[in-house]
């Protein structure tokens, strides 16, 4: 594959170049899989090749991947999926009856009784029905229509699909989408990709990353000068910040969305990951409906969930869904058309989702083990959330808000001016310099706060709380020690 052509074709450049490719894609930056991760992968290769380093493994605390960090899959989920994958096993006595029952039901709903068959683009109907029932139960009986449920390839797929539908207009009329700062960079990447206008609203670090409506108003009014704001995205529990919004806050956001005529996108993939005392997950839909028909009949909303987080951590299945509320029927018809381009979401992911919304009941054989495993995972995360906050707050120069939920900590780091200057001279974000150093010295891979957005002049990093407790403690100590060294070096 030579770079240069021969025989007179030399003067021709490539057909597809940086200059004529989609300019929007050039703006895409997805920090979670960005340059620091690429360097981490390279280091892993070097370690494998026997290169000597101050560490023997790279700890990838950059990505919310529980299994990669040693979390064990929930037995029941995998049993049913194995049965679905190889139905002969339904004859095997080692599998419990409740697992078999669910497997049979899922297979019955699949084309040709196989999870290998395409499904309808919106997702297998009986699974959408199960999802609707789960939502109803979760939300205290508020009804959910299976036809408003769209299964997807992870929540990300549904989020991007919704944004595709929402983004339009030219120039000053271009759709503006409000996203929190800090945010999960899928949003900023998708907005860049779609050429939408990103509207930043800042979460309040001093108030445990709380959301204030006055900030929403400020941000919206400023944005109205140069775009057409139509969407408000909120992640609750938050990523990277972990804050669990209060019910009052959620009501305020809904009220704001109604007043300002915004489409609300509620990313709730961490809904089971709530740890802090006094914090509770309130679904946007539930709060919306409890605010009465003036709101529940008018506010247009999509809420998102996934099989990648919570207690399951099954990222590799790419399972998820969105529920749409009050969508214009004609737009919904277009949405149905749009999702058909993907053909269908992965059926194993759909099956997995079905189990998440249909877990073993108290009277079923797998219940005890299932609950034990689920509780253990969530309890471990809660413990790790506490330890993380405690340890980081003992380090001068690191301030860590309580990790109320989700899977991450996003501590603020004070960087010496010399380090900031060095980074700037090298054309690098200061927290990227910090994280790269940490990676090279300790083999710990984090994502710099600049990848998520932060107030000008502040620096952060995002670390997952997923490594096993003992390993996590070591990681926390190493980062603490590194921070002191780094501060010393650049003082």
């Amino acid at each position, binding site marked *: 594959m030579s770079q240069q052509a021969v025989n007179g074709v030399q003067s021709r450049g490539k057909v597809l170049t940086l200059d004529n490719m989609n300019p929007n894609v050039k703006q895409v930056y997805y920090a979670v899989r960005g340059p620091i991760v690429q360097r981490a992968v390279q280091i892993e290769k070097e370690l494998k090749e026997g290169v000597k380093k101050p560490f023997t493994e790279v700890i990838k605390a950059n990505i919310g991947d529980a299994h*990669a960090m040693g979390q064990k899959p929930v037995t029941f989920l995998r049993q049913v999926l*194995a049965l679905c*994958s190889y139905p002969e096993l339904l004859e*095997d006595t080692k599998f419990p009856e409740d697992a078999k029952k669910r497997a049979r039901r899922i297979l019955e709903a*699949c084309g040709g009784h196989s999870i290998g068959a395409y499904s309808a683009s919106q997702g297998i109907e009986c699974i959408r029905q199960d999802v609707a029932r789960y939502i109803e139960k979760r939300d205290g009986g508020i009804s959910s229509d299976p036809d408003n449920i769209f299964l997807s*390839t992870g929540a990300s797929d549904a989020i991007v699909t919704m944004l595709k539908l929402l983004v339009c207009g030219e120039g000053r009329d271009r759709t503006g989408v409000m996203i929190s700062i800090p945010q999960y960079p899928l949003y900023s990447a998708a907005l860049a990709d779609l050429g939408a206008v990103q509207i930043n609203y800042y979460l309040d670090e001093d108030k445990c990353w709380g959301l204030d409506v006055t900030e929403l108003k400020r941000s919206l009014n400023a944005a109205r000068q140069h775009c057409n704001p139509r969407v408000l995205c909120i992640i609750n529990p938050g990523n990277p910040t972990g804050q669990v919004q209060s019910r009052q806050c959620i009501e305020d956001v809904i009220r704001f969305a109604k007043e300002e005529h915004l489409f609300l996108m509620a990313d709730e993939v961490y809904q089971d990951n709530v740890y802090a005392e006094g914090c509770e997950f309130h679904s946007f839909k539930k709060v919306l409906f409890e605010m009465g028909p003036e709101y529940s009949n008018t506010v247009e909303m999509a809420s998102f969930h996934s099989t990648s987080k919570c207690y399951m951590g099954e990222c*590799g299945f790419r399972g998820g869904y969105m529920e749409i509320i009050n969508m214009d029927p004609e737009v919904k018809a277009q949405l149905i058309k749009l999702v058909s381009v993907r053909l269908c979401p*992965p059926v194993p992911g759909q099956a997995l989702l079905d189990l998440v919304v249909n877990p073993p009941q108290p009277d079923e054989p797998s219940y005890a083990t299932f609950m034990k495993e689920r509780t253990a995972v969530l309890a471990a995360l809660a413990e790790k959330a506490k330890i993380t906050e405690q340890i980081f707050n003992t380090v001068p120069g690191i301030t860590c808000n309580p990790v109320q939920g989700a899977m991450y900590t996003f501590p603020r780091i004070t960087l010496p001016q010399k380090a900031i200057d060095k980074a700037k001279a090298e054309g690098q974000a200061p927290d990227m310099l910090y994280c790269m150093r940490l990676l090279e010295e300790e083999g710990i891979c984090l994502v710099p706060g600049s990848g998520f957005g932060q107030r000008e002049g502040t620096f952060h990093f995002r670390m997952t709380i997923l490594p096993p407790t003992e390993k996590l403690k070591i990681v926390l100590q190493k980062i603490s020690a590194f921070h002191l060294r780094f501060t010393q070096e650049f003082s």
Partner: protein
Amino acid sequence: MSVLQEINPNVRNLKHLEYVVLARRANQIKEELQQVLAACLDPTLVNSDKLPADARQRAQRLLGGCVGGSVGSYTATAGISEIVHRISEFITRRDGGVPSHPENIYISPGSQWALTNILKILVNSKSSSQTAVLTPLPSHSTTSLSITSLGAVAIPYNLSEEQGWALQMEELHRALEFAKGLYNPVALYVINPGNPSGHVQSRKSMQDVIRFVSEKRLFLLADEVYQDFVYGEHEFLSYKRVLAEMGPPLADTVELASFHSVSKGFMGEGGLRGGYVELVNVDPAVMKYIFKKFSMDACAPVLGQLALDLMLNPPQPGDPSYPLYNVETRNIKTAVANNVKRACEVVNSLPGFCCQPVQGGAFAFPRLYLPPKAIQKAKEMGMQPDTFYCLRLLEENGVFASPGCEYGQKEGTHHIRFCILTPEDTMEELLGRLTSFHTQFMKDFS
């Protein structure tokens, strides 16, 4: 979604039977995939004697490539590295030794997903005129839908029915000239073997296309998902291979993306969502952004990646499962070849019905010569004549065929598309019902 599904609510719940029926036939291949996936999902099965040893070993090896030994972990953006390597080895084997580089391969949730990502890179909304991609007519609608949903326009080039749906160079030239007048054409999309056309391109035709894209400076998108289904004396040649064998300068300069998938072929595992794209001669600077684009999707579903690996690395001579695998694939090929023969025979024997030779792919796409009364009736009912035909066919004889209007066809012509990847007895049944329906229909509207 088929037009029929919009009209007939009962059809809405119809599952996609086309590929499933073939999968039921591929017992050994399918069973091995099922066993390996089951052991990967529930690793306690790796040590159980319920599964054959080679399936367990395969599962163990695959799990070794998964982070944390779990199929629930994310993988690298382009896919599990060992699998990506094996894909490149498969491609090299398939293409008679033409080298394939793992860094040019991305595994995706199905080939359409990868195609959309590449199209995304190609579509330049900031250029003065709208991006255009040349697409075949007739063509499956998913690709044109992808193109339009990205804000670009699909410009059809007509395949020549009289020449067995062959691609005609003059028609490519015409379509491009037309496009140039109004839009910014950047790419040519070909699907070989064709859907719904069933045409398999000759090497010469492919060379002409390659010369065309080189001369006209277009990016070539080659959809090759039906490469396992080629009949008679026809041979599948990949665009990559033909390009490489044309030597420099074309081999080093023509920019190509070729697509494959587990959804078709002997596996037919569309639900697992496993596919890949191989990029050839793409500017390294652009490749960086292709990586970024794919990284937003996290990664392809792990089970889909595993299925891809199994599909592209079937039992080899010497493996214990080879004899059975060999027999089964031969049987499938024979059965499908027979289906093709029977379908063409039967259709061509009926008045007002004519089928071009089905050289490859999953479908027959015969032409209907409908009586004026039928066309009139369809008009009165507010639907296309071939839709009317297909609806009647479904309602009266329980055969699901899709109307040609869904794929695009020359004005005034009508077609239907039906799947030929069925067990032989199902094909006979289908052809029997089609015959009696068609005969009656033509009589009713004479």
